[in-house]
């Protein structure tokens, strides 16, 4: 009858080696899972920020005068400041993208610079969405810009073609 030989010391070192390889592979896999999750969160943030920024731009586009635009921004944005004829309006969102002044996770900022002329008012508009705290697994300090749009809007004195 054949005898099956079993050397426990060799098996133990093999097992320890295989456990070590497994642990290294596991750590790499967990890291990949975490990165995938945060990439998904960033993609969602970009989609939400894009929708909010574009919607605000569309609302601004629909106004006939610059005063109407400032009135809307004063009412819907929580903080505002004026420096050298540049208006800065900011509103804040929580982690679920609900407008929230206390739990500030994201900020949407509108920067408006006026340029008045005889025929009307040329307004340079920049709307950007930023994350207040940096994403995990990404070594960046301070705020991180998620989405930004920059454009100009001319408000004619007479109200323009559609303003009559």
């Amino acid at each position, binding site marked *: 009858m054949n005898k099956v030989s079993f050397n*426990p010391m060799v098996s133990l070192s093999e*097992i320890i080696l295989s456990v070590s390889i497994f642990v290294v592979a596991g750590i790499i896999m967990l890291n990949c899972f975490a990165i*995938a999750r945060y990439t998904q969160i960033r993609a969602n943030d970009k*989609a939400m920020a894009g929708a909010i920024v*574009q919607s605000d731009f569309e609302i601004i586009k*629909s106004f006939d005068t610059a005063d109407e635009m400032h009135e809307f921004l004063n009412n819907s944005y929580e903080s505002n400041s004026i420096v050298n004829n540049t208006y800065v309006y900011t509103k804040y969102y929580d982690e679920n993208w609900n407008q929230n002044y206390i739990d500030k996770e994201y900020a949407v900022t509108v920067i408006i610079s006026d340029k008045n002329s005889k025929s009307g008012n040329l307004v340079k508009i920049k709307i950007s969405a930023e994350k207040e705290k940096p994403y995990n697994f990404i070594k960046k300090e301070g705020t991180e810009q998620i989405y930004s749009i920059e454009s100009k809007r001319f408000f004619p004195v007479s109200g323009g073609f559609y303003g009559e």
Partner: protein
Amino acid sequence: MHKRNNTSQFSFQFIFIMLLHLIIVILSVMIISLGKNIYDNINKDRNINYQLRVSLSYIANKIRQSDKKEGTEIKELHGVNAVVINEVYDEENYQTWIYFYDGAIYEMFTDENAVFELSDGMKVVEADFFKIEEVKDNLYKFTAESKEKSAEMYLSVYSE
């Protein structure tokens, strides 16, 4: 006596090796389960985002394609708001109606002033809830909801 010591050492090492095997199995199950959960979450988010974004983008593209004076309007159809896109082909007036009905966005292409039921349209994309509003003459608001998430879109139009 010597033989007995060898036996106990052997059984101790055997148990230790088996324990390591068990740790590998437990860790494997944990990693697979974690990976599955993360993948499920990613897939769920992707589906919700798809529903929200596709429905809003579809409406936005349709309106922008026909965004000229009197090109689009919002009308009520059997109690629900609908986007109506006016088109002219071979000097005949046609209308495309886009509305929310029975958990989906429907589209109906028909002659101007034709009478039809909500169910007559063609299903375009599924959505848990979709609302069409006219904020003012040149500004429309669309709200899409899918499971726990909702998204809004404003659209400024030339059609008044």
